[in-house]
């Protein structure tokens, strides 16, 4: 993997894509997210770090309303996507999730062929009018996920038969194929070996050109490698948010410093 290229690529965007104001999340009686305010930029990789159970995944799932699928979860506050409140009654979470794609911790390819996995989103949302267009989207997405060369001769084989790293890149291709504006990644490398991890990390950096990427990670090295902005969560609070370099070299909050130096977490 080429680490240097990732570091050298500069922040080119300052446009705010997602803006969260006073977000509270309750799981039953548990107050999981406490008053989080954050602005996530377009065409940027933003990393959420923090110890287990700090709420970073919970907050990530607020951004595409996946918490709606959990009965006990309740979300308060405002999250604006391009200035529009996604928790407004007029917003259909189904349409929202087409715009805000998600890649999960464990690779979860559908028990279908590789082609059908990638074509799933475009078919549902009617993004392709002809078979040729669909083929094009599938190829482009698989290329985007750096998987095309490995699978181009076996598109009709089961997606579940790929290796773990390939499965995760297939899931990324599947998310990309729906042509989202934001890509949420919930610890996308935690089930992968180091080689697959570096492939996915490289991919994340490329995705930044087209999407706003938000990644939850347990690995601080990963956050430092792939992200331009980092948010540190602790016990449901957003403790510190800023440029990744600043967070890792000049943390303002003592809790952040303790965490990145390995004393809490």
């Amino acid at each position, binding site marked *: 993997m080429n680490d240097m290229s990732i570091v050298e690529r500069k922040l080119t965007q300052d446009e705010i894509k997602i803006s969260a104001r006073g977000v509270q999340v309750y799981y039953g009686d548990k107050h999981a997210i406490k008053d989080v305010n954050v602005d996530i930029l377009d065409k940027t990789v933003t990393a959420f770090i923090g110890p287990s159970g700090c709420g970073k995944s919970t907050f990530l799932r607020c951004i595409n309303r996946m918490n709606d*699928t959990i009965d006990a979860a309740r979300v308060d506050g405002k999250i604006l996507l391009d200035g529009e409140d996604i928790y407004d009654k007029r917003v259909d979470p189904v349409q929202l999730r087409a715009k805000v794609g998600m890649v999960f911790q464990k690779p979860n390819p559908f028990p279908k062929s590789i082609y059908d996995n990638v074509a799933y989103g475009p078919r549902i949302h009617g993004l392709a009018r002809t078979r040729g267009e669909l083929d094009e989207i599938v190829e482009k997405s698989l290329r985007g996920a750096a998987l095309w060369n490995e699978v181009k001769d076996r598109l009709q084989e089961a997606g579940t038969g790929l290796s773990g790293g390939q499965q995760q890149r297939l899931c990324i291709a599947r998310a990309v194929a729906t042509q989202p504006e934001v890509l949420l990644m919930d610890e996308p490398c935690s089930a992968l070996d180091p080689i697959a991890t570096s492939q996915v990390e490289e991919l994340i950096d490329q995705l930044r050109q087209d999407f706003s990427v938000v990644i939850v990670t347990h690995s601080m090295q990963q956050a430092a490698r792939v992200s331009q902005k980092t948010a540190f969560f602790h016990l449901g609070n957003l403790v510190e948010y800023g440029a990744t370099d600043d967070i890792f070299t000049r943390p303002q909050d003592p809790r952040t410093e303790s965490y990145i130096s390995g004393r809490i977490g």
Partner: protein
Amino acid sequence: MPVSWIILLVLVLAATAYVLGRRRALEGANGDPRRLHSRPVYYGWNAALSALVPAVLMLVVTRLALGSSNLGALLVLAAAIAGVIFALSRTTPDFRARNMVEQVVKAGLILCSSVAIATTLGIILSLVFESAQFFRMYPWQDFLFGTEWTPAFGGGSKLGMLPLLWGTLYISLIALLVAVPIGLFAAIYMSEYAGPRVRAWVKPAIEILAGIPTIVYGLFALVTVGPLLRDWIAAPTGLGDSGSSVMTAGIVMGIMLIPFVSSLSDDIINAVPQSLRDGSLGLGSTPSETIRNVVLPAALPGIVGAILLAASRAIGETMIVVLGAGAMARISGNPFEAMTTITVKIVGQLTGDNDFASPETLVAFALGLTLFVITLALNIFALYIVRKYREQYE
């Protein structure tokens, strides 16, 4: 001496042996259980089992060889005492008592599991032998491919199986057409849409259906569904005037099968990993698209297995057919006519004062064999599919 007394004596002996064995082991170790190979209780159990096992074996042997006699009783007691003495003589601190006891327990477990297999084999053998006798008296071609079923005691009967097979398959088909959609949709509702509180009520309520004896369903078919279908559908459309019909039996049998299909499918749908649902919802598909495109295809092999298990239940059902479809053996496409099934005719041929050497009686065994082969094939097919499905997620 009656058997109960022998058994009681042997049990007393075994209890004594337990105490003796345990004490002897502890004495050998100077009262320190840590110097024994196994914990003291195992020495006790070893002695007790050494009394029980030979005694039981001897009891079986003497009953078979000598019948009920005092000599037999003495031999049983002698075997028990010999076993105890042998066990006690081996009870030293180094004796591997736990391993011995576990060997005996394992043998017991193997015995229990082989009972089921042996019984199945026995049933098959008895069916095969009786059927072979039938086919010596009646040509198998006429049985398998005959389209007429007119048994007449005293000779000249036609025993063609096809009308019965037709009735069986026709009724089972209607039953499945009722049970599969309703059961499957109920399962989808319970596993995907119902909240935990609704589920806690609905699932047991549906499963109550499975607890109703089939004869009660039969009564329901006879007094309610049959006349209803005749008066409201069959008679006005001129399709038939009989209360007993394939449709009646099929519908009622379908109702009986709903809990089978729904309960099994519900378990299978629940076994589809949540991560697949999340993946689909995360791509912006609606819950119903997720169920249609991801959950059901993933669960399909298991659902097919459930349907096949329900089908083999339907094929073997008797009581609902007797009361719902009548006993007329005929091949007809009209679902409002009375027909009958293999199972009903097996009962018909064997009840009453019959001569067990005539083909009219023995045909029941050939029918039973046919039924057995059909349901066995369905079950094997279902198990094969269910197993293949399981490998996918474990």
